[in-house]
């Protein structure tokens, strides 16, 4: 393993950022060009990330120091296996969502706002994943959080604005907490670089403050329990492709940040010694149960999905709290899985809402016969959520559970299972009603709609098939990446 | 008691400049009449000038003018010089304040602060 310098990470971040301006310019003239350019940007970004693969797979770390802001504080990029995994995942999903947006958004207002924001959010997301130090991470984290606000309030309804305001305030709180954490880290360690040894030596009170701050900051983004309130409001009101990204990718930035904090800032020994992970574990358990339980009572399709996201993020947090190797694999793989599953679900829900205009689950009886393809994708993803064997959701749950067993805490496994059952309780009725339920002619207008346009279907299909494939094929790329990444983190991560 | 009084007497310049200062303050504090406020301000300023000049004063000292064969004690000329500047400043502030009072009177038709508040209370800024 060696450290290499390459401009590529900077390119990955800067390219979409620059393209944003190009798109902004182009969209004044041609809508078609705008759409094409957005998709092309996402594709190029994805390919650029993929281009990192040979180096990464050879076990190298790519670093690039942009410039120094201050002594010991710089904008730097660093791509290790974990960064790469998440970057490739999110650019992939982004690409699909960009394709999906073309048809979804064509009837929406404010597309000229939507696309540049979509692309610049991609840039900041890449920035988060490729950040070489906490400061850079923080900068992009804030950028992403704030810019995605535009996506949240895109509809500009009263609800959206309200939810957006909540989101904004929570983002600010989270950002400030992060700031606090980073400041403490900087104060204690004199640097916030992620490429060196861990930054905290021993569990001090200040370190604990920092940990809590990081937990609040990243946990807020990840929909952690007491800070999740913005999530079920913000995700449903956003346009569906945006919700897919919000739920599928942007939540993961919080998880990613926490991973970095646990392994690079505090270090695994410190975490184990100090027992701070217990806090995380308790919160994770509450998050899982709460998310799943509340989802059951939701009537709005997207709201249900949003709550489900909270529950699923709980798994990821739990994986971090357990801190055994397999739990970690499960955790990272679940980031993948959940990204695929939730994106599928949201995109499918978006297609359904677009075509029928109905969001209430009760109204969706028989939709599976009208839009079999979409609903089939939905089903695949939902089954994956429940953790049915051949799907990727199963694989991640399985690995997580094994990790929990390794740690000797079967209690967590039980939590996982209870949550799975609850997942079943809220996903299955949708599917059953969609495929087998009658369209109640007397009460509602029978739903007579066509299948969504193919530009929407293809992304959905790709994601849904990914859900299946990445569970069915055990030597799939995401899992390998997760495995190597977990190994990498546990070996010290540098 | 007498000790205190004695000390007060010895430092009467200082003491009374402080008294004046407080008088000035009090005038600014309690009077609604804007002119009186300005007067208070002036009293306050004056008290400080007094104080400042008193610093430089030497009992029995003479004006610091160089005379042949003089063995006198001179009073310190610097504070006086400074205070000249201070007086200029005070005068200009007073002038400006008075002009503002004129303006206020034009706008409100009164120079009573309370009245002005009352008049302003009705309107939104």
């Amino acid at each position, binding site marked *: 393993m060696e450290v290499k310098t390459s401009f590529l990470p900077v390119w990955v971040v800067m390219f979409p950022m620059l393209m944003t301006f190009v798109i902004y310019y182009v969209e004044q003239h041609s809508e078609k060009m705008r759409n094409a350019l957005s998709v092309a940007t996402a594709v190029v970004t994805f390919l650029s990330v993929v281009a990192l693969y040979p180096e990464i797979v050879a076990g190298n770390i790519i670093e690039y120091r942009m410039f*120094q*802001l*201050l002594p010991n504080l710089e904008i730097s990029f660093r791509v290790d296996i974990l960064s790469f995994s998440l970057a490739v995942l999110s650019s992939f999903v982004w690409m699909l969502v960009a394709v999906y947006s073309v048809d979804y958004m064509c009837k929406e207002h404010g597309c000229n706002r939507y696309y540049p924001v979509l692309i610049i959010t991609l840039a900041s997301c890449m920035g988060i994943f490729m950040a070489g130090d906490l*400061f850079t991470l*923080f*900068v992009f984290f*804030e*950028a992403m959080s*704030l810019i995605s606000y535009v996506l949240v*309030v895109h509809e*500009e309804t009263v609800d959206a*604005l309200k939810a*957006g*305001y909540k989101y*904004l*305030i929570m983002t*600010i*709180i989270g*950002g*400030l*907490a992060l*700031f*606090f954490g980073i*400041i*403490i880290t*900087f*104060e204690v360690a004199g640097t916030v670089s992620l490429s060196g040894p861990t930054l905290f030596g021993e569990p001090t009170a*200040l370190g604990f*403050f920092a940990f809590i701050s990081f937990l609040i900051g990243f946990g807020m983004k990840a929909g952690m329990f007491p800070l999740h309130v913005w999530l079920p409001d913000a995700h449903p009101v956003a346009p569906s492709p945006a919700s897919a990204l919000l739920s599928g990718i942007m939540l993961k930035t919080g998880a990613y940040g926490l991973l970095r904090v646990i392994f690079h800032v505090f270090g695994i020994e410190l975490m184990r010694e100090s027992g701070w992970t217990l806090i995380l574990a308790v919160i994770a358990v509450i998050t899982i149960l709460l998310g799943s339980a509340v989802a059951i009572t939701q009537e709005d399709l997207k709201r249900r999905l949003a709550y489900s996201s909270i529950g699923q993020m709980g798994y990821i947090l739990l994986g971090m709290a357990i801190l055994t190797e397999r739990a970690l694999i499960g955790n990272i793989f679940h980031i993948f899985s959940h990204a695929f599953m939730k994106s599928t679900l949201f995109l499918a829900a978006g297609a359904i809402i677009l075509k029928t205009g109905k969001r209430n689950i009760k109204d969706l009886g028989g939709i599976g016969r009208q839009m079999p393809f979409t609903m089939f994708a939905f089903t695949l993803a939902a089954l994956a959520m429940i953790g049915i064997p051949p799907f990727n959701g199963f694989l991640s749950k399985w690995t997580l559970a094994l990790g929990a067993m390794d740690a000797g805490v079967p209690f967590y496994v039980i939590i996982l299972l209870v949550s799975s059952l609850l997942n079943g309780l809220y996903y299955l009725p949708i599917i059953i009603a969609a495929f087998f339920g009658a369209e109640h002619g007397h009460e509602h207008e029978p739903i007579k709609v066509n299948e969504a346009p193919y530009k929407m279907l293809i992304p959905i299909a790709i994601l849904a098939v990914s859900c299946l494939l990445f569970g069915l094929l055990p030597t799939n790329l995401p899992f390998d990446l997760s495995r190597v990444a977990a190994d990498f983190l546990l070996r010290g991560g540098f | 008691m007498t000790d205190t009084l004695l000390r007060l007497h010895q430092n009467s310049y200082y003491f009374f400049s402080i008294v004046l*200062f407080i008088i*000035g*303050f009090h005038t*600014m504090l309690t009077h609604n009449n*804007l002119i009186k*406020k300005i007067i208070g*301000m002036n009293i*306050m*300023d004056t008290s*400080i000038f007094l*104080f*400042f000049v008193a*610093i430089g004063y030497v009992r029995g000292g003479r004006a610091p003018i160089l005379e042949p064969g003089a063995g006198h004690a001179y009073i310190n000329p610097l*504070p006086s010089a*400074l205070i000249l*500047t*201070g007086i200029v*400043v005070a005068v*200009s*502030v007073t002038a*400006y*304040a008075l002009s*503002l*009072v004129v*303006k*206020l009177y034009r*706008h*409100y038709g009164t120079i009573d602060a309370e009245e*002005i508040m009352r008049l*302003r209370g009705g309107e939104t*800024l």
Partner: protein
Amino acid sequence: MSAAAHLPALTVVVPLFFAYLMPLLARWRKSWCAATTLAVLAFTFFSSLYLANRVMSSGPFVYHMGGWAPPWGIEFYVDYLAVFTALTISGIGLPVIVYGIKDLPHELKEGVLGWYYTLYLLLMASMLGMALTNDLFNLFVFVEICAIASCAIISIKESRECVEAAFKYLVLSAVGSGCLLLAIALIYMVTGHLNFTFLAATLPGVMAVYPKNILAALALLMVGLGVKAALFPLHVWLPDAHSSAPSPSSAVLSGLVIKIYAVAMIKLLYKVFPATFAGMAPVMAMLLWMSTLAIIIGSMFAIVQEDIKKMLAYSSIAQIGYVFLGVGLASHNALLGGILHIFNHAMMKAMLFLAAGAFIYATGVRKLSQLKGIGVTMPVPAGAFAIGAMAMVGIPVTNGFWSKWYLALGALDAGKPLFAAVVLVSSLLNGIYYLPIIVNAFFSKPEGAVAKPGRLPAVMTGTLVVLGAGCIIFGIFPSLVLGLVSRATRLLLGL
């Protein structure tokens, strides 16, 4: 001695001189006023730059007015803090008056325009003087000039609110001046010196003999400068004064004037009063708590304001608290943050006031609730406002972030994480009152006057763009100013 050697004096004297020329010029060639003012300010800016360059390369130096050596003559001490402040003043003053060229005729009566430039230059000159001077009484004189000029620059609008606010300001300012003068008297009484350097040398000895005297002087100084700098419980005059003034005045008052008193206080506290003094009186602790209150309560005041300029004015109260927080924490990083915030806040607040002014200029609307959709119809000012607001909240890549960064770091350095938390809480409060404005501006349907704003002159737009770009540039490259600030801090703390 070339002209360059006299630059410290010229920096102050030239604007002072031209200030008095302005009314004449206005009578003679009205259109030259603005150009001359600009030229003068540009001169001050470049001379400050030159001084900065000189100081950075060869260290601080003194300049004796008229060649008189210190015990008798007035001395300018050109050190890092001084040039930093001078740069800030002229650097912000310049774009503000550029903006004013178009805005002022809109806000002021025809006849007084020339006078406005006079006052503006006076203000600038007095502030530059305060920054550079090394003499206590000289400082007082500049304080007085500054006080009158700043009152006048408010009352020049001649609306009843302006006059009233100016009067209020004047009265309180006079109180402050009185305190200051008394303090000077007290200090002079026991030391016999007015020069900072000499004072610093004599005070430790004197302190042993007359501790209470100096304590009283210190208290008076604090109160006097505190009133002028609108430190929390003494801030009452500020909201009215800053909100009713013409926009360029507000910008410069909020951005620069209150800061310059803070600079004066930094000078006095760190350069004049011996370090051991801090042990005798809890000055720093008092400052800390006062600034904490200022930060929190100022922000809370701002939340409930309806008027956009009033809100900005209250926000200034909070922001001056940041500066004093840095002063009070007295650790290297904190002081650095405080001083840096002088510059950063000057830039942000000037921009915010100017943006607000642009809104008022184009629509006549001052109520926050009526500014919905302004971002759609006036994207550039609203964008500038957004950047300023982000900077206020302390979002990274804006300059406001760095002040916060150093303040928080300094609080931790000083072993008082509570104050780091204060900084963060206030950021949150800032977010609470700034962000809804931006959100409303960009995501609501424009109504009424907002829907059809008047045309904004290119100069005003340009100023906003320049300031906005400045916020971002100094956010991305904080090291542009940090070198200077860091040296200033080191010098002040004797590191």
